[in-house]
């Protein structure tokens, strides 16, 4: 079971991360039992959440970046979890609990950004009335705060894409952006690990 203080267990999910407890804990916790195999695990302090549809051209940039990080064995030390989903939803607020830092990765449709990478700190935001089922990363942070879990320091990486058609491969610009994004993500992980060592 994972609570807002970071204790966690449960079965792996998504792209091979840690457990997915249901209890957000805190005052008035519901004492919900824990789905999973019951083995106690620790939440990895660093989380990379990539969102996107692997079958929609450059929308696959997030998933592709996650694959590259996995190929680079960033999870080997046990301090990083990689999580993939189609889009951000309310329940991702629960994935933030107990993290030291979080990196959200998504493709950007801004034509002027094609092939480029932006990486910036983000803060919790209330979000806007929904015309979409998906949430923005700031909105996920905002929900985490509202349901009783202080959101961790978070960053948003946007990789500029160009073509988003169903069944299309990565565009040339998207592929170039992916390479830059991988370097930026690895740099982000190095910086967070350095901070961790400094704090220790």
């Amino acid at each position: 079971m994972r609570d807002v203080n970071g204790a966690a267990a449960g079965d792996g999910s998504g792209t091979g991360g840690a457990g997915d407890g249901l209890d957000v804990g805190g005052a008035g916790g519901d004492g919900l039992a824990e789905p999973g195999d019951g083995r106690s695990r620790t939440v990895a302090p660093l989380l990379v959440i990539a969102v996107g549809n692997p079958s929609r051209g450059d929308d696959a940039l997030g998933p592709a970046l996650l694959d590259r990080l996995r190929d680079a064995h960033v999870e080997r030390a046990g301090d990083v979890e990689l999580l993939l989903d189609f889009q951000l939803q309310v329940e991702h607020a629960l994935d933030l609990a107990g993290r030291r830092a979080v990196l959200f990765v998504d493709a950007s449709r801004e034509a002027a950004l094609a092939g480029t990478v932006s990486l910036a700190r983000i803060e919790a935001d209330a979000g806007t009335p929904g015309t979409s089922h998906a949430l923005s990363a700031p909105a996920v942070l905002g929900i985490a705060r509202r349901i009783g879990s202080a959101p961790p320091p978070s960053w948003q990486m946007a990789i500029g894409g160009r073509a988003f058609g169903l069944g299309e491969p990565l565009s040339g610009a998207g592929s170039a952006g992916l390479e830059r994004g991988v370097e930026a993500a690895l740099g982000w992980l190095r910086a967070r690990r350095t901070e961790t060592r400094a704090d220790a």
Partner: protein
Amino acid sequence: MTDLAAEPAPAAPALRRVAIDPLSRVEGHGKVTLLLDEHDRVRQARLHIVEFRGFERFIVGRPYWEVPVMVQRLCGICPVSHHLAACKAIEVALGITAVPRSAERLRRLMHYAQIMQSHALHFFHLSSPDLLLGFDAPAARRNLAGVAAAHPEVARRGVLLRRFGQEVIRMTSGKRVHGTGSVPGGVNRHLEPADRDALRAQAPQMIDWCEDAVALAERLLAQDEDTVRRFGTMRSSWMSIVRPDGAMELYDGVLRVRDADGRTLLDGADVQGYLGLIEEAVEPWTYMKFPYLRALGREAGWYRVGPLARLQTCDVVPTPRAEAQRRRFLAAGPVHATLAYHLARMIEMLHATETLADLLEDDALVAGERTVDPPRPRPAQRAGVGVIEAPRGTLIHHYAIGDDDLVSDCNLIVSTTHNNHAMNESVRAVAADAFDGRALTPALLDRIEVAVRAYDPCLSCATHALGSMPLEVRVVDARGELRDAVLRHDDGRLERCAT
């Protein structure tokens, strides 16, 4: 896409007058055109929603066994529905008439979890802000965070209900996304006993919360009964699958249609013959088709699907607490109010969760045969239809498989397409009521969104990438000239477009 340095529009300080590029470049947005008559009254509404353009090209030519996994990439909201509908269709094509009990139970578990978590997301994230905070609440506050600030326990339960359903899906399909639990002929894994125990322990709490959500939806809608009764309301027929005995059935059944007065127009129809029942009309202004019942024709044959339909096509909901709610819901006769979809959705969420609890008692989830092989020799013609009640309504997958085992043809009618005519009509009704004949206002945009949102259309089946979900509303007068156009971006920003 936009010129952000535009000047303020003097008549509407909250809006800015800007020039915009052709909006057809923007995928994943909702677009509404209001057509006026010569008296500047709203004559027609045209709602444009992104649909599965390119779907056939994406699927045709693939090996049939890949399809149940591939189709999950069509939609980030109800991938399980596509996964299971595809499996069912391919099984028919292969001549498989039944899957082992374990497979059927596990698929049901997965499907009802999908219904539960999707309904939870819609109610708590998308519609409860409108209902709890009011249509006219400031846009910046009318979201889940606003609900959480004002009603923290409601928001918290919404998140946890959603996560419970997601957990069931993960445990039965293997992953959060792109799971492979269902395969042609059965399933490829059982539920782990420890997972089953954990879910069983949580199920009673989830059912209680779902029942509370029904009460909350009922209370919220009762606050302004007059608005609920009038808002985007219309008489329509209803369609869904039901169990052969008439009970509510979301995974597999026969087609039933009832008219606005509750009379049964069609019953016990084999889904394999859907093409003989449903025709799809095409309009020049949208890629999205308009299904209607062939027997009634284009004008009279349109219908609605989804929770409000399913509660009215069935004779009984086969779980006790949801059935009690259905009886109360329909105590005064057929319900036509579009906003009643919200309450119907919560009753269905209760039913889905009760069903999950029942299924979790079945030992077939953790043991037993998982698959059957296709019969030999294989059928000469390999084609099949799979129909399932997805969260938003009836979902139809239809495939043909060639001798080379590749998909040679496919057709898909998604829930949002079934509701296309109804959504347009609801938007027209709301706009006709709220449009002052001159200019679009934020309040009118709010009401259009509320009307569309009642159907929970899947606006995000295309890419969701950053910055892709604005709403555009245009007004075209009787002479065909653009009178006004407003764009509302993801961040709530409004822009008045050049006319």
